[in-house]
């Protein structure tokens, strides 16, 4: 399993989306999010986009006020995860149009649906934006 969790956190450290690919209790999640968000937010832009934390490696990228953090295993290709984050943002951008923090907040389930298409069992399974978005577009039409 490559990806352990995906978090979106704004620069005040507030969670905007959290998806875990292994089970953690509410308390564990809270603690983990607090720790890594503190770590990542304290870093400046010249520093690596990677942070080691316990057994995880966090790959993160900032878009405007939103941080995208992906926790991965140690043998994952960090640059590829960085690109995955970008792909995710591009996909959301294609769907929402100029995606921003509020889009994700108002359409939390849609952001999750996109992730469900892209990642299963902690592995990246789909990278074509058309394929990722088509079920969501179909659902939009149907309802």
């Amino acid at each position, binding site marked *: 399993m490559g990806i352990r969790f995906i978090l979106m956190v704004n620069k*005040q*450290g*507030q*969670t905007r989306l959290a998806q875990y690919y292994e*089970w953690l209790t*509410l308390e564990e*999640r*809270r603690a983990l999010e607090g720790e890594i968000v503190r770590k990542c937010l304290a*870093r400046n*832009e*010249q*520093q*690596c*986009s*990677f942070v*080691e934390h*316990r057994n995880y490696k966090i790959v993160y*990228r900032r878009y405007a*006020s*939103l941080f995208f953090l992906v926790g991965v295993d140690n043998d994952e*290709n*960090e*640059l*590829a995860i*960085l*690109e995955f984050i*970008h792909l995710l*943002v*591009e996909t959301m951008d*294609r*769907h*929402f*149009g*100029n*995606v*921003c*923090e*509020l*889009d994700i*907040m*108002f*359409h939390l*389930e849609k952001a*999750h649906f996109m992730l*469900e298409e892209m990642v*299963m*069992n902690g*592995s990246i*399974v789909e*990278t*074509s*934006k*058309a*394929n990722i978005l*088509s*079920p969501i577009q*179909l*659902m*939009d039409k149907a*309802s």
Partner: protein
Amino acid sequence: MGSQGGFYQSKEFLDLVKSIGEARSKAEEDRIVLNEIETLKRRISEPDIPKRKMKEYIIRLVYIEMLGHDASFGYIHAVKMTHDDSLLVKRTGYLAVTLFLNEDHDLIILIVNTIQKDLKSDNYLVVCAALNAVCKLINEETIPAVLPQVMELLAHPKEAVRKKAIMALHRFYQKSPSSVSHLVSNFRKRLCDNDPGVMGATLCPLFELIARDVNSYKDLVISFVSILKQVAERRLSKAYDCHQMPAPFIQIKLLKILALLGSGDKQASENMYTVVGDIFRKCDSSSNIGNAVLYECICCVSSIYPNPKLLESAADVISRFLKSDSHNLKYMGIDALGRLIKISPEIAEQHQLAVIDCLEDPDDTLKRKTFELLYKMTKSTNVEVIVDRMIDYMISISDNHYKTEIASRCVELAEQFAPSNQWFIQTMNRVFEHAGDLVNIKVAHSLMRLIAEGFGEDDDNADSKLRSSAVESYLRILGEPKLPSVFLQVICWVLGEYGTADGMFSASDITGKLCDVAEAYSNDETVKAYATTALMKIYAFEIAARRKVDMLPECQSLMEELLASHSTDLQQRAYELQAVIGLDAHAVDCIMPSDASCEDIEVDRDLSFLNDYIQEAIEKGAQPYIPESERSGMLNISNFRNQDHHEASSHGLRFEAYELPKPAVQSRIPQALIASTEIVPVPEPMYPRESYQTTMPSIPSDAGSAELKLRLEGVQKKWGRPTYTPATSTSNSTSQKTVNGTSQGDGASTVSSMRETYDSRKPQVEVSHEKQKLAASLFGGSSKTEKRPATGHKAAKASSHMVEKSHVPKSSMEVASDKAASAQQPPDLLDLGEPTATSTALQLDPFKQLEGLLDTTEVASAVNGAPAASISPDIMALYVDTAAGIHNKNDADLLSGLSNPSVTNMPGTTAMPQVTQSSSKRPNPKDSLEKDALVRQMGVNPSSQNPNLFKDLLG
């Protein structure tokens, strides 16, 4: 906004999101959420809630959990929602359930039925939703309930379903390999799926299968290579492209698989060389994803059977990574270097300065990665510098997790490469002092053994010097407050054994210190036990030396306390101490010979010394011994220990004594001797009892040590990890070998080879002296050095020599190219710095701009969308601007940043269709205005208290 249709949202929901978004602190957020919990608890159980409303409630529950509060009161409603007919509602229900429940939750049983039904649905989207849930919620027990349906879906006409079905099967395999072991062939079949998406997904389970059992999949090498070749040749649909790279994620997965399959397999590797070489050549090294693929190529090349050409390409890429300005690339470079030096160690040398830069970088991530590299390239010649640095770093950090890791690495390196015992002990002291409670207890044991065994040479003088210095350093360290328990155990043991050995310190000095330790760490029974045993040894040595023993008052009170201790172990030790003090000098000398911890303990497994006794007993009519296997019933064993004295009793006593020699023999081993074995003195409650005298002949005395059989195979590799290697061990990784008491320095002295390395370069350019020094000490002993035959010098000498030589400047070539590279370096795509180009636009009143945008929309989309996008308040644009802004100042096109910079420079054809497509799909400025309107409606405006939120909205 366009996407809002179909996603009904009430004012209430908007208000909630708004207030969460505006919360200024965690406390405020918590208050909002707690309030929300109260509201929902009331509302959600009302009858006849319309399903759209219910869907919204469920999403509000998701919010509650996401923000760290318990929403279990609503789980059941999420479960119910999965039954709904509406796809959107159903999928939201499934989503909520997967977020809330783990696979062992009681409610899962209610969902399995729904999942079963949905897997049979005609609507493939319903099937997909159910398969998503399967991947998250099915545990080992429920696998059989859905397995047949999932298997059927593997042949579903829709590729999306096949893909998810394969992943569901993957999940089953992860959860319980045995339950699907007969089905793994399906993964192979799906590899040939017509749809690249399904094929790509299949690589995930295949990777795991291959990682577990490489040999069963060797036949697939050809297939994987041919798929990779086709992918690299752009045979897949453009939809999978990322920044002009054809299906990079599939390429990376394939390279990972090839790395596994080619590892140590020349034949398989040869099939891969061409395609990997092609990728090296084709990869666009200016994009992030291109570099990701290149990095994966390096990993693959360093894992498969080495190929010189590929190694060269890999080395080229690594040097480009290391010379890059981007920290991310440096990080990858260091990591890749660590992989490659295993195969070609000489490559590290040309990057020494880059590595040192990374080591000294303030970025902690980079630093750690570099320490990892140093760890991999440690040799006997550079161990001192590296371990020293590591310890310094270890002291400076507070993260226990990483501290433990780095401490154990220090210990491992020190054990393996220590140039001298003195250094080893000093290093260990530092590690123990700062991370003592984090290291493995075995480390403490090997340190004790080292001190006991000394240099292993026939140099008693050096040994005792070593011990004296250890004793001295420990007495000093004892002054420090709060030492780790493990370290105290070592200290007590050493003080007990050698505290008074050289006559520098009197018994009362040492015993006083030991009492202090026992008192100061009175909660730690292990330390107290060590201290007590140490006290006993000191007193025993005093008695044996026929000196008068004066027990200090504090020692007496300590003993009184321990005699009444709740711990039976401590009590026993105290009683033993009392007993020993009462004995005469000769007896004590026999029980506790001084400096005998290293003597061999010969266990006479046959108990031959009892032969006469047995003979006598049999003659008197006793039954002979019957082995356990031949015995019928178990006999009373409670009094077997007394058999020596009760030979008359005719039943079974005998065989117990013969059969279980271990407890009996161990009980006869004096404490001091036990210490040198793996078992450390602590929990050794059995102590000399009346029978010890029977074994006296086998107890070696101090004086007779020369004639004794030394346990050579144990001493052989003093610091090595496998602590007791057999005598045949030929490992040359340790710097010293002890064979029959003589030591050989091995691979250590390097003076001439050092010159060879450095004289070939012209010393011209001045590089910072400090760095040179470090570089020389780290990289000085290159691989050539290691190959040199051992010359018998001490490693320590070699390394000190290296420091002298360290002023030799570095090759001018390298420095020059370094500079050139930094000048040429393309702008860093990964740099997510605040926008530079757009910043002026952002400072203007966003509203004015937005209004202006309406007019320009048409022009913008007609031309190339650049003006619109450049001002468009867009997360993407922000990202783009750093890259695109620097790279091509005129072109602030949104899409140019999304795609590769090379596109940026290409106006017209390539960029155009994309632009028109996207602008027709989403009229950016209009969208923004709608958002703006929404925000106003919600009462947020630029001057409100949450400027950040607003800023997000408008870029």
